[in-house]
C-alpha cells in the first residue's frame, strides 16, 4: 500500500467518525456551556430534570439486575443444555435487536391497554401498567434483553465444559459448580453485558415514549425530558440533559474499555 492510500484511508475513516460522532456531540457540549457552567447546572438541577433522572435510574435499577439474571440463565440454557427448540430460543433472544423500539412499545400497549389481553384483568385488580413505572420497566427490559446473553454465550462456549466436569468429579453439586467455577469464569463477560444493558436502558426512548404516556414530572425519563424541553423551546435545558446522558455514555465507554481488557486477559 502506498503512503498516499494509507493516508487517505486513515483520514477518511477519521473524517467519517468526526462528521457522524464527534462534531454533533461536541456541538451539544459547546451549546450547553456556551454561557458558562452555571446556566447548565441550573438547567439540570431543576426539579423536573432531577425527577426525570430519578425515573431513569429507577428503571435501570430494576431492569439491569433482572436482565442479568435472565441473561445468565438463558446463556446456560443455550450453551450448556440440549432441549427441543433451542435454536428458536437462541434466535428469539436476538429479536429485540432487530425489532424497532416503537413496535415493542406498541405491542405492550396492545397487550396491557384497557382492551388488551392482560390489561382488562390487571385493571380489574387495580394494577396499572401503562402510563406508569411497570410499563416502562417492561419496555426497557424487552429492549435490553439480548446484551448479557450475547456477551456470555461465547465465553461459555470458549471455556468449555471440562472445568465444570472436573468440579463434578470432585464432588461439587451443580449449584456449587455454578457459583464456584462457572460464574467466576464468565464474570468479565457478565460485567461487559451488564454495562451494555445499562447503556441501552439509560438511552431507551422509543418504546418508553409510547408506554409511559410521557406524563411530565411523573413518567418522564431523562430521554423524554430532552424531547419535552426541546419541544417547549427550552433549548438550554434540552442540551444540558443531553450532556448528562452523553457523560453517562462516556462513563459506560470507559468501563467497557477496562472490562474489554480484563475479558481478553
Amino acid at each position: 500500500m502506498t503512503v498516499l492510500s494509507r493516508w487517505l484511508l486513515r483520514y477518511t475513516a477519521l473524517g467519517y467518525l468526526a462528521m457522524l460522532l464527534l462534531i454533533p456531540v461536541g456541538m451539544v457540549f459547546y451549546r450547553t456551556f456556551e454561557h458558562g457552567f452555571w446556566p447548565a447546572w441550573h438547567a439540570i438541577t431543576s426539579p423536573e430534570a432531577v425527577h426525570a433522572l430519578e425515573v431513569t435510574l429507577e428503571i435501570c435499577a430494576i431492569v439491569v439486575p433482572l436482565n442479568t439474571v435472565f441473561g445468565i440463565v438463558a446463556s446456560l440454557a443455550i450453551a450448556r443444555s440440549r432441549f427441543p427448540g433451542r435454536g428458536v430460543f437462541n434466535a428469539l433472544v436476538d429479536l429485540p435487536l432487530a425489532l424497532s423500539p416503537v413496535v415493542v412499545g406498541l405491542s405492550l400497549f396492545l397487550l396491557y391497554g384497557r382492551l388488551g389481553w392482560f390489561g382488562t384483568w390487571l385493571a380489574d385488580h387495580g394494577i396499572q401498567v401503562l402510563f406508569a413505572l411497570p410499563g416502562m420497566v417492561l419496555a426497557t427490559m424487552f429492549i435490553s434483553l439480548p446484551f448479557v446473553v450475547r456477551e456470555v454465550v461465547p465465553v461459555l462456549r470458549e471455556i468449555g465444559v471440562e472445568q465444570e466436569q472436573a468440579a463434578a468429579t470432585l464432588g461439587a453439586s451443580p449449584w456449587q459448580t455454578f457459583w464456584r467455577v462457572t460464574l467466576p469464569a464468565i464474570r468479565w463477560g457478565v460485567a461487559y453485558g451488564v454495562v451494555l444493558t445499562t447503556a441501552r436502558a439509560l438511552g431507551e426512548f422509543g418504546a418508553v415514549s409510547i408506554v409511559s404516556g410521557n406524563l411530565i414530572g411523573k413518567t418522564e425519563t431523562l430521554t423524554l425530558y430532552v424531547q419535552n424541553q426541546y419541544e417547549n423551546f427550552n433549548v438550554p435545558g434540552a442540551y444540558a440533559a443531553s450532556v448528562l446522558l452523553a457523560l453517562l455514555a462516556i462513563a459506560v465507554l470507559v468501563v467497557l474499555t477496562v472490562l474489554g481488557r480484563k475479558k481478553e486477559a
Partner: protein
Amino acid sequence: MGIVAEGITKRFGEFTALHDVSIEIEPGSLTALLGPSGSGKSTLLRVIAGLERPDTGRVLLDGKDVTGVPPQRRGVGFVFQHYAAFKHMTVHQNVAFGLRVRRRPRKEVRERVTELLQLVQLEGFADRFPAQLSGGQRQRMGLARALAVDPAVLLLDEPFGALDARVRKELRRWLRRLHDETHTTTLIVTHDQEEAMEVSDRIVLMNDGKVEQSGGPRELYEQPANEFVMGFVGPVNQIGEAFVRPHDLELSLHPNHATREAMVERLVHLGFEVRVELMLENGEQLSVQVTRDEAETLELERGQIVYVRPLRETVF
C-alpha cells in the same frame, strides 16, 4: 475398589463409540486403556466416571451398580488431558476444591493440600495461578486435585498427552511410583503403547469401539490375539501370511535353505540398536532390528546383499 463395565454401548448420533464393551479391572491394579484415537477408550473412561451416560449396559464400582449415579457421588478422581484447571483459582485453591465443597474444616484442608503439594513437588507454587505453571506442573496439580478427596478409583484421560516427551517419561515413572505407594485402583487412557507397557500391570487394547485383547503387557506383545494387536503393541513385518517382529529376524552374509536374499536400503542408527531397512527380491520391504555390535560384525552398508531368516513368526 474394582471396576466392572458390562455390555456398554454408547452412540453419538450415527457414530457408535462403544459397541457392547465389557471390562473388569482388579482392585488395586494399574490398568491402561490403550487404542488408536477414535477407538472409544476415552468414552469408556468417561462412562465409568459418570461424565457420559451409556445407552446400554451398566457400571459397577466395588460391586455396586452406579450406572444412574451422577459423577459427584461416584468417588472417582478424574484427570483431564488438558488439565481442566480452575483458571481463576490458585494452585492451593484448585487442590483444595474437593475438600472445600465437602465443607471440611479449614485446618484439615490446609494440611491436606500442603501434604499433596509436597507429594507432587509443587510446594513453592501454592499461590501461583495455573497460567503461571508449565504443562507438567499443571498436570501434577490436576493429579493432586484428584487425589485430595481420596478417590477409590483414579481415572486418567491421556494425562500426559499434551506434554513433551521428556516430561511425559518423567511423569509416567512418577505415576507408577505413586501407584506403588497408594495402590489406588487406577485406569489410564493412552494411545501410546510404550506408555501403556511401561506404566501398567494390565492393558485393555481397544479398537473401533471394541476390546481387542486384554492382558499383561508381555502377554499382548508375545501372544497377540490378532493382527491388529500385534501391529499396535510393537513394530511388525509381514512376510506372506506370517508376521515377524524386527528383532526376530536374523541377518547373515551367507545363504542357507531357510534364508531369503535382500538388499540393504537404509541403515538407521538409534544408539544401542540399528534399524536395517531391507528390500526382498520380490520388492517387499522389511525392517530388521540388530544391535550396534551385530551391525559392525556384519559390516553392513547401503546396497549390500544380505540373507535374512525369521527366528519367530506368528500366523493368525
